[in-house]
């Protein structure tokens, strides 16, 4: 069984925990074979929402998902830039029904 553990933090507490501590935790999990993938995210201001309706891609600023919508899956992708990522996101089938939030990964700082 695989589980997705989602991290929630208030905006002002984004750096309340040192990156180095998170990296050590990830390394520990990986060593014991527990970890498949883990990433930190850039703050919510960097989010872009992609929807496809009637075959047309629509792009909006921010994570303005309908409150009825729930997190129902994720794809960790490798893309050249945001336009590239939007192209990929627009091909994810649920983009037609709900919305795909595209958020850049934040590189952890070991110091």
């Amino acid at each position: 069984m695989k589980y997705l553990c989602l991290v929630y933090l208030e905006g002002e507490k984004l750096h309340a925990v040192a990156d180095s501590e998170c990296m050590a935790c990830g390394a520990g999990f990986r060593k014991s074979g527990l970890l498949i993938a883990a990433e930190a995210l850039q703050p919510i201001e960097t989010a872009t929402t992609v929807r496809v309706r009637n075959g047309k891609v629509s792009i909006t600023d921010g994570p303005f998902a309908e409150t009825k919508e729930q997190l129902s899956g994720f794809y960790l992708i490798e893309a050249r830039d945001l336009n590239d990522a939007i192209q990929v996101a627009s091909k994810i089938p649920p983009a037609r029904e709900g919305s795909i939030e595209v958020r850049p990964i934040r590189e952890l700082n070991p110091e």
Partner: protein
Amino acid sequence: MTATDHIHETVNAVYLSDSRRVLATLIRLLGDFDVAEEAMHDAFRAALEQWPREGVPTNPRAWLVSAGRFKAIDGLRRRKRFDSLDELGDQADIAVTDTAAWADEESVEDDRLRLIFTCCHPALGPDAQVALTLREVCGLTTEEIAHAFLTPPPTLAQRIVRAKAKIRDARIPYQVPTRAELPERLDAVLRVIYLVFNEGYAASSGTAVTRHDLSAEAIRLGRLLVELLPAFDPNRASPAPPGTEPEAVGLLALMLLHESRRAARTSPSGDVILLDDQDRSLWDRAQIAEGIQLVRQALSSRQIGPYTIQAAIAAVHAEAPTAAATDWAEIVGLYDVLLRAESSPVIELNRAVAVAMRDGPAAGLALVDAILGRGDLSDYRLTHAARAELCRRLGKHAEARASYGRAIALTRQEPERRFLERRLAELPK
């Protein structure tokens, strides 16, 4: 005038004509808005020092780009003294060898398009798109933009800082969109330009009806876009030459035709004058002629979009010698086409007013009431102003009074309020 004064004047002239081009290219070469902006200012500072001594270079723009890039790399080097210099060293070599890449006219014009599309990227909020475009593409200062949008300068500055941070952190690329992406991306650019125009033309709040500078800036932007953008007709194998993208041409026509009425739209005391009552001899004939010619050009393309149709409607008004001679049947027909291209209650409202002019106020009122009956546009001041006007013409004074009241309660613009209050006072008791 001394030789140095003369050079200072030359540098100023180059700043006015070319600083946005220099910036657009530096953003591409340096990959960062803030670094590029600082580099551009350093380059102009260097020009003020060096040109009096060494003479004005044959290609000032290429000189400025080259100087800006050198200064930026030099700055990064000094800041990263203890980091590895190898990578930056490679970049500096490129700077020396690929001068052709930025002296070349075509790639410089592409840079300006890249800048426009990046500032109007739909991943940025609409307010941020407008602010960033006016700042980076038009070169307005933060204070000027804040003043024009009645926003406190720190709020506006913050908006620009956040937009630049998102470009950097979410990695919004500095490029002209591919043909597949173009329709949506071009819509965003046209929307930003029209928003800026409307903000200047009919400010939604504040004391002055027109804030001329923003409209003039939007028209300049519209011209630039038409000039730079090739037409992307999906039915053609290769892009058509620049200057022919139909909706960009249509938008420019629409703005020129609206702008042509500026002098006739307000009385010397700043009061609103409706289209019917305007002194048509005050309309700017040169802008009308250019607007009509552009509408014809856009209509002759195979893709006719909402901006072109709206421009065609404005052209019908512009061609009428008197208000009474307006071809309302033609205007209603164009609104029908517009509703098919882009259905919206506001367009329906405009169509209802045109129908009232063609078939009489009762026909128009029935359409306005149908829109309100559906629950649309009940908080839109112009719905109630139009309804009041139609009721007045039909002699339904009590209903007219109620609708003027709603319109007055909803308007936030001083001259418009005065106009509506005057109309209300003129109703027979």
